[in-house]
């Protein structure tokens, strides 16, 4: 194996790519060759490093120096100055605050001070296409411990004691699900990793799979051992082609090294992993729909019971967990349930990866302990609101979540606290909007999404989303009356209580919360026919309203 004295991670996440990250990488490789450094320094492209604002971003190890806004013209300078002469290129050092000069990687850590990386522990630090990098950071050690030192029941007890809850949205205790699957009778059992990640504005699972694919493989094998399954499926969102190719490569390497396949760690335990690419519908992330889709059927949710742990894939007991849930497993096995359960808060242990987006200074992915408040995330990692505007509302948990107003900025981000204020943690999407957005327009956007994504199977969701969208549309055009507010609540009520699956049940969450927290804005639209932001173009804006009043006065 070649020994490299240094590694350069070049971010080719969406934002950085758009800003030319790929091109920077290409030039970098060329320049290294030119200077004969290609045997000494390895270039690794990574997914989002979590600081999109500063893209294209690169990090040079072992120093851990971040360079931001790197353009192709800058590459030669970095190579000559930093790599050859050992001098930092000050003008490119990634800085958060303009006033602070020469922020080094160390300083930079401070901005991420609330961060705690468990599931993202390896992302950006290893070459995801080289299993040795993973192994070098304790990879597959947990699998070894589980297979050689623990019984399946002991593994399950550990997961139960850790308090880990599912990160796919519902927050169901992982250990309990493992136990149910373990106890169920079946000729065959399966482990399925839910990597459909259909929630708009969420890309945490992608980051894990692209940045650290072996973590997922290792976790699935441990899960297989615990529940008694020898086959695993990863159901990956179709658009995630880089993840698919990295997972495939990872599976190949793992099989070659014997950490996947037959007789793992001489334990008689076999485990193989197959990849299935999703067809693209949001609802296919719902577990029963996902399982149907793997079976080759139309991906539609099914009534429960039976639940997957009893009757899942092809009627056999099936454990289905989210990628992020699974990524915690090796760490829990290695560091112990006790260690894990002390992170976060009671009833909601560990960390959560949030995908922060919207009107904040810094968008990106951040992993923080459960219970970190919304304000801490926005002001810490997010660097506050962009363009000096006022915060208006945050939607947590993605489209299925609720809207949180300014007064609730100190709400801790965990399943229970968010449920209490009528929202949800969901997949960890975090959309921040400033005062320039109209609440009716926001609600309309969400319902547009659900009208489009309803699978059409059950009445309340198939019909309800469309009627709800129509009503909001009428409100935004000044064509509604006060009765529509009651009807909106009626619809929200019947959808949330009687829809067949989580999609229809959660679709009205944002309606409830906006009706609760922003009722006045609705009323302004309905009675005064005024939209303060001007987003609803058919209505008068506040300013025009003022002028009109001035005229009549």
């Amino acid at each position, binding site marked *: 194996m070649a020994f490299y004295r240094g590694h350069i991670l070049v971010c080719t996440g969406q934002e950085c790519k758009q800003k030319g990250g790929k091109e920077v990488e290409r030039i970098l490789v060329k320049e290294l060759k030119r200077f004969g450094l290609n045997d000494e320094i390895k270039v690794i492209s990574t997914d989002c490093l979590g600081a999109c604002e500063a893209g294209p971003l690169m990090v040079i190890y072992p120093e851990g120096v971040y360079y931001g806004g790197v353009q192709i013209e800058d590459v030669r300078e970095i190579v000559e100055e930093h790599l050859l002469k050992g001098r930092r290129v000050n003008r490119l050092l990634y800085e958060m605050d303009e006033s602070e000069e020469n922020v080094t990687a160390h300083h930079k850590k401070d901005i991420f001070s609330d961060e705690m990386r468990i599931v993202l522990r390896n992302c950006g630090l290893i070459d995801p296409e080289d299993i040795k990098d993973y192994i070098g950071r304790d990879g597959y050690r947990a699998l070894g411990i589980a297979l050689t030192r623990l019984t399946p029941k002991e593994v399950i007890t550990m997961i139960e004691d850790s308090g880990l809850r599912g990160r796919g949205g519902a927050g169901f205790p992982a250990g309990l699900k493992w136990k149910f699957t373990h106890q169920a009778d079946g000729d065959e059992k399966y482990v399925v990793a839910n990597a459909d990640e259909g929630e708009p504005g969420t890309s945490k699972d992608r980051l894990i799979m692209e940045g650290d694919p072996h973590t997922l493989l290792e976790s699935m094998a441990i899960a297989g051992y615990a529940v008694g399954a020898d086959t695993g499926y990863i159901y990956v969102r179709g658009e995630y082609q880089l993840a698919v190719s990295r997972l495939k490569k990872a599976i190949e390497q793992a099989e070659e090294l014997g950490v996947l396949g037959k007789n793992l760690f001489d334990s008689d335990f076999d485990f193989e992993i197959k990849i299935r690419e999703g067809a693209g519908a949001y609802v296919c992330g719902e577990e029963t729909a996902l399982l149907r889709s793997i079976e080759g059927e139309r991906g539609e949710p099914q009534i429960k019971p039976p639940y997957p742990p009893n009757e899942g894939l092809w009627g056999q007991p099936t454990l289905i967990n989210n990628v992020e849930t699974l990524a915690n497993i090796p760490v829990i096995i290695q560091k112990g349930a006790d260690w894990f359960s002390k992170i976060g808060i009671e009833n909601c242990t560990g960390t959560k990866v949030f995908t922060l987006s919207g009107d904040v200074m810094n968008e990106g992915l951040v992993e923080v302990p459960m219970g970190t408040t919304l304000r801490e995330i926005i002001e810490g990692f997010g660097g506050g609101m962009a363009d000096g505007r006022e915060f208006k509302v945050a939607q947590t948990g993605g489209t299925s979540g609720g809207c949180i107003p300014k007064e609730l900025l100190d709400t801790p981000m965990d399943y229970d606290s968010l449920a209490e204020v009528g929202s949800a943690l969901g997949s960890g999407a975090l959309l921040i909007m400033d005062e320039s957005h109209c609440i009716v327009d926001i609600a309309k956007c969400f319902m547009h999404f659900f009208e489009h994504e309803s699978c059409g199977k059950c*009445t309340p969701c198939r019909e309800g989303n469309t009627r709800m969208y129509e009503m909001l549309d009428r409100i935004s055009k000044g064509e509604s009356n006060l009765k529509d507010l009651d009807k909106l609540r009626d619809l929200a009520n019947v959808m949330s209580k009687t829809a067949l699956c989580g999609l229809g049940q959660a679709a009205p969450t944002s309606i409830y919360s906006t009706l609760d927290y922003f009722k006045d804005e609705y009323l302004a639209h309905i009675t005064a026919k005024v939209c303060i932001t001007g987003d609803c173009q058919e209505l008068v804006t506040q300013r025009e309203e003022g002028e009109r009043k001035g005229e009549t006065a």
Partner: protein
Amino acid sequence: MKVKINGEELEATAGQTVLEVAKKAGIEIPTLCYLKDKNEIGVCRICMVKVEGGGGGYEPAFVLQVSDGLEIETNTPEVRELRRLNLELILANHPQDCLSCERSLNCELQGLSKELGVDGSRFAGKRIEHQLDESTPSLIRDPNKCVKCRRCVSVCNDSQGVKVLFPNNRGFETLIAPFFNKDLDEVACSLCGQCLHACPVAAIKENDAIDNVWEALNDDNQHVVVQIAPAVRVSIGEEFGVEPGTPMTNKLVTACRKLGFDKVFDTDFTADLTIMEEGHELLSRLKEGGPFPLLTSCSPGWIKYVEHFHNDFLPNLSSCKSPQQMFGALAKSYYADIENLSREEITVVSVMPCTAKKFEATREEMMKDGSQDVDLVLTTRELARMLKMTGVDFLNLSGSDFDDPLGISTGAADIFGVTGGVMEAALRTVYEKLTGEELSGLRLTEAKGLTGVREAKIELSNQTIKVAVVSGLGNASKVLEAVKRGEKEYHFIEAMACPGGCVGGGGQPIPTNEEIVMKRGQGLYNINNSKSLRKSHENPVIQELYEEYLEGVGNKKAHQLLHTTYQKRAK
């Protein structure tokens, strides 16, 4: 165990659903998409009940299984409101043209609206206009009325095993139709009409021939005869509030005369004739050693299904036309000669329990010189509608007999309309031909490993005849597969497309369900028992027909008139 429903403590056993326990206790929970054992997918969300305590929440009553101490509310204001909201959502996307809808007063959606106290829908909005599918002579699909309960999907896919109906598109645009929204004539539909019976509304209905029949009746230049199938006489009464299975034969004849038919004949007559021909075919195959199994050919849905899905069995199908088509052929030859009429001057109408019969009449094999033997086919329901239109007081009519000569029949012909009947009727004749003795009843037992299939062995001196009886296309397919795999061997298989046979046909009154189908079948056996002649070969007019016109059983002339061929169709 004990459960509490609406505060009332009830005894229940594990595995029961809340719906079952409630029903037993006299607590009705409304349902729409639920069809026991057939469609248990829980999509309409009408049967929701409230689970008290614990996590609580609302669950569909037919899914929720009882557990000790379970407390359920089925009738709180909120439960009623939620049901009503779901129903209003369905109504907002429904044409609501009850006044002109043929399912009016026999529509589950209408019934539910009344039951749940719906007074209009709060949610008017856009609707998608769909084209009607009028591609087949049998059925019309009207997706505008569809409530997406998917009962038809389950019945077509699972019970019938034909698999031509599916949910297309998604969300609000969901459309229950053949794949890629094709028309029924572009897919392998058998036209059995079982989807129609599954449908709670008028989204699937027969392709109505009433206007054409009126036109023929009003045409002075046409001699219009009608034939009535066996299964119609035990079901038509239901349209007038009479118990299923009550024989209405004689009133039916009078009623048809009142409608203006020149002659009222009986398909039973040609059912006897079918037995003669099919019995002969079985005998000659026994003599020649096959091909076995001989498959009956009187059910046009079954024929079309075999043509689409099992066309390696086409040589096994009996070449006999169905009784309907034998009648048409004879009416326009033998009977026309008697009356001294030309083919063009006769209109043959049939009243059938079946939607596939409408298609059968239009098959090219059933034409002569470019015109159909059977011109128009009415279902039981359509005939009832005609009677209602004309104000015929059906129940108070005095009875009368079928016309001669195509109106005389034996009990063997009546049981044609019920599963197992054709087999029994055929064996009565064949057995006597082979042994000279009377067959003392046919004892069918459940076939091992094949649910829904019954079989029997008939011992003769030198051989054993193995027969099987099956109804419903899903079951029928299973027998053919078993035969193909060599697991089962039969000489003769009676197969009918509809569960229970023609008494459960797609043209029968709505509702048609297992219990009602049983009663109608029993009605046919009662008619058989009341007749003195019970073997087809004893029918005196049939004997005369063979002597005077057909030149003997299995003869060339008989073959030309009474037999047919089949074609391969795409899957």
